[in-house]
């Protein structure tokens, strides 16, 4: 390439059938022009958007991902958009934790009558991602960790139980979100541990700590849990420390 080409971002958007996809159609019938960078994937409800879809998108060439759904109160399925909002909130928090720019994720509400707003949303997000530039290569490793965490049943159970916990009123929303966040962090750390162990076949706790940057005490608790879950097993000793490896 002789000249550096102007960066044009790839953006994937998940849209619900009833509001935002319809809004996009209306932008069309109204002939409102907007940036050609966004590809829509239609689902029946924004509540269908699996958190892993967002990571999958970034792993497959997207520079930004967004979810577009119905405004609160307008959801064709009553409450699906609340659920997707919760997931997006968590994803953004975890992005921050991992040092990823959470601005590459977006959630917006566009009704079936908001053609103009749809175009605006596309343009604004495209501009933002264009400014942020292409998705840095170093994102991929962290995305992999995040995907592992979000695919794990532990985090999914806590995330999926949010509505139930609030409705039963046994815990304040803020505390619940904080606890979920902590669990997510732990899960990401465990992904890191397993990644290190897999890479080196077998390792001791100080070695793992060295490789992952997790302090030893905290690491011990992870190792205990991972051995109990039969993910790790011991494979002898070295320098007075147990050696751990993945259990098949």
């Amino acid at each position, binding site marked *: 390439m002789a000249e550096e080409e102007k960066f044009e971002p790839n953006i994937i958007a998940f849209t619900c059938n009833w509001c935002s*996809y*319809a809004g996009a159609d209306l932008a069309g019938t109204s002939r409102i022009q907007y940036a050609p960078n966004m*590809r829509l994937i239609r689902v029946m409800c924004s509540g269908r958007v699996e958190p892993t879809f967002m990571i999958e998108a970034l792993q497959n060439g997207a520079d930004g991902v967004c979810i577009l759904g119905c405004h609160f109160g307008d959801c064709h399925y009553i409450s699906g958009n609340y659920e997707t909002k919760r997931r997006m909130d968590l994803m953004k928090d975890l992005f921050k934790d991992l040092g990823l720019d959470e601005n590459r994720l977006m959630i917006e509400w566009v009704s079936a009558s908001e053609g103009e707003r749809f175009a605006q949303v596309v343009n604004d997000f495209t501009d933002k991602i264009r400014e942020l530039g292409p998705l840095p290569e170093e994102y991929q490793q962290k995305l992999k960790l995040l995907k592992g965490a979000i695919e794990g049943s532990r985090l999914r159970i806590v995330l999926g139980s949010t509505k139930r916990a609030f409705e039963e009123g046994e815990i304040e929303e803020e505390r619940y979100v904080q606890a979920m966040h902590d669990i997510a962090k732990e899960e990401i750390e465990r992904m890191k541990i397993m990644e290190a162990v897999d890479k080196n076949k077998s390792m001791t706790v100080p070695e793992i700590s060295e490789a992952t940057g997790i302090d030893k005490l905290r690491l011990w608790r992870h190792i205990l849990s991972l051995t109990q879950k039969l993910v790790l097993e011991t494979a002898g000793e070295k320098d007075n420390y147990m050696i751990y490896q993945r259990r098949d």
Partner: protein
Amino acid sequence: MKESSVLVIGAGITGIQASLDLADKGFSVYLVEKSPSIGGAMAKLDKTFPTNDCSMCTLAPKMVETSRHPNIKLYSYSEVVGLDGKVGNFKAKILKKPRYVIEDKCTGCGTCLEKCPSKVDSEFDHGMGKRRAIYIPFEQASPLIATIDKDKCLHFTKGICGNCVKFCLADAIDFEQQEVIEEVNVGAVIVATGYDVLEPDMRTEYGYGKYKNVITAIQYERLMSASGPTRGHIKRPFDEKEPKKIGWIQCVGSRSNRLGNPYCSRVCCMYATKEALVTREHNPTIEPYIFYMDLRAYGKEFEEYYNKAGEIGVNYIRGRPAEAFEEENGDITLRYEDTYTGDIKQETVGLLVLSSAILPAASNKALAEVLGVDIDENGFFRETEIVSAPMESSRSGVFLAGCSQAPKDIPDSVAQASGASARVMDILPKPEIKPKKEIEEIIISSDDEPRIGVFVCKCGKNIAGYMDVDDLAKYSLSLPNVEHSDTLMFACSQDAQLKIKTAIKEKNLNRVVVAACTPRTHEGLFQDTIREVGINKYLFDMANIRNQCTWVHSHDEVAATKKAKELVRMSVAKSRLLEALGQGEIDVEGSTLVIGGGIAGMNSAIALAEAGIKVYLVEKTDKLGGILNRLTTLYPSDIDAGKLVDETVKLVNAQKKIKVMLNSELEDISGYIGNYEVSFKGKDKKLKIGTIIVATGSEEIDPTGIYEYGKSKKIITQLELEEMLKNGKLPKGTKEILMVSCAGSREDTGRTYCCRVGCGTMLRNAKAVSKLAPDTNIFILFRDMRSFGKGEEEYYVDVQENHGVKFLRYEKADKPRVTVDGDKVTLTVHDMLLGEDIEFEPDLLVLTTPTEGHKSEDIASMLKVPMSKVGGFFLEAHAKIRPLDFATDGVYVCGSAHSPKGVADTVAQAVGAASRAAVPIFQKKVKGDAIVSDVDEEKCIGCGICVSLCPYGAMIIDDGKSQSNKALCKGCGTCASACPQFAIKMPHYTDNQITEQIRAVIDKAGGA
């Protein structure tokens, strides 16, 4: 032999609803619409009150359903010119006006519209925008066919031009077309002709037609509409600038014998409120002013909407401007009398909107003659009795619905449309449900190698004009598993369907992708097409390369072509994994449970029984008739309430199909549409039920404490007064009676709603008192006189003029004060005009208290249906277009259980609910949805997250595992993406299918 077919005249929302209700039951419907498209007035509206829903978004799906229904034959741009015969055997003559466009050939591509040189005012935009001489009235028109306006077309007027012929690729223009008269046999007729809007040029004092910045509310609606002539920007006609202040004048042409029409137009207070509220929300710097006489916010959640408008800065001024004049800069100055103070004031606005009257359709008179039915003194069709028979016209077999009978809002029109269709189902023979002739499906398993055909639509020039379609077709063929690709001029046209089917057969295709417009309007069409050659309809996908590509990137052919390739690649990637899905069928029990034996429940029961449906009518007390048993007469026709109850009970008892269950209370309801199981307290026997109508009504509140009620026997409620009137005796020495409106309703908190019937009750009882004891002094203290229904404004005027009743207004902020001192009751109220307090010492102080829903939470939870926020009323599926349905299939609501209402509206709703509840029973089977959750029991750990997230109660835990009830699932997929075990599959939107779509967006090989 009577015909199982019906003629519906008018295809606005009313005619559409009536047609769908009947067609869904198997009746053949001939739907005649005089204009080029169906949709009526609702299609012109921007938003609808009180939810601010987009009007087109709720209407358009019903339009598509109508145009595609196999039992509906649509005659658009046609008129009914004859009706002979009698009920059961009418012969109707339908005149098809020439469009000069061949309907079967026109694809609605719009090329001719662009090329037509002749611009004229658009009727659809009420002159705010332009159309061409060849036109499609609005973008979502159905049928999507062009029409030539002969009077404006250069070919017809000057013999020149012919651009449309030149540019029509479908060869659809035919200048020689003639009008055609067709004759159809029908058993019954429904009149749903809607209304016209007063173009108030005769009210010269407001300068309409003279001053540019004076427009009507419907014109303002077009300005607000995102798809209107200004794309939703409020630009005043004088200088296209946005006005800073906007004024609305209410009752222009209504509520005045001298200046227009005596009746109330019923919807203007709310649409003006909506227009002002939405404008203000959109731009908080605009100041809206509404000049009104009585603010009639009578319907469900209207009062709350009106309050909200006030809160966000809509100014309400009680007073009718006397005159308007134009300033040099185009502003309009209004002079009005402030009715509080009597002062003459002035206000200058940048734009003046006239809330002009709803008029009977201009065609009513001629149509009434054709149909041989009566119209009333105002020009609306005359019902046989306002309260008890609002749907019946003067001719047997001809029924009325919507604004053809009287002005109405959308939900009341829709309810009456269903009501009229129930009347038709009651008198005509039950149609045979024709088994659909379907060819056997070709079995395609996931093991079969996908063989995909890609069809690229050119959409005339709508797609082909902005991108390289041949390149796209060629590229498509290079994608894995694509065995065939082709371009089509119009993928939706008849010849294209043939091409698609031929390709499927010749190339042995097992999946089809159409790259064209949007699946939201066209998926069904192509699905039907592939099904006709035996391919399961779920083996189809659409790539939206028009609405979401060429139309929005029309200045960048390269980008549009690249995007289109990506969209097709995504579609193909998904298609490879598509699976054939089966739609299960659910048998429907042929019986309906009606909960509540008041006037609503009884009317539902009778309408169902007359259609041959078994009805269980459950009443918890020992008597049918509900609250009507306590009333004397009914507003506004003064018919005897007791007599109406007796006659209705007689009809119930005469019906063998109705089993009345008095003193019965529900214990449990389980199941789903078609298959409910119902048990009663203290009874072992369980009933099998197909559909359920909730008609539990409402009850009077406990008035204790309101205006000192309970402290003196002189302070009574309207129902207690009614008791006295029934006995024909007022307490001895009653010389003065004072009635107070809104006692316990229209509050800031708690009962925020309007009780809807209170004003009528006051008027009716005041009149009754004046007849019983003419010497009594009667005062009515009111806030807004809400006499909105047919005959009600006239009733109000009659009570004012002929019954010696005196009216006095009070404000919410300055309510009357009541004190009780021994035997003496004193009421003090501030009179704004006199500027001083007035004291009364009435012999009877009658409180007009609201009703509230019965304590029905148990019924709501048994049925899994929601309740409204206030008043203990039930919450319907959609405030506007589904007032009688719940979101849960198979359960319906009517009468005061829905919200407080008078008997006329209750009867329409009750009979309407019967129509709704009869649909699944007539169909005998309902189709289950194929896109429903599917639980993998092996993976499920029984955590119950799906159960907690499902808004429809479709998920249950049984034996430690989740189970999905396919009849209840609506297919949103929220459960699937929350399942910790990935144990729930959403067919057609599976994890794999979506992941493949994601992976296909970016072509790593760099092909596009």
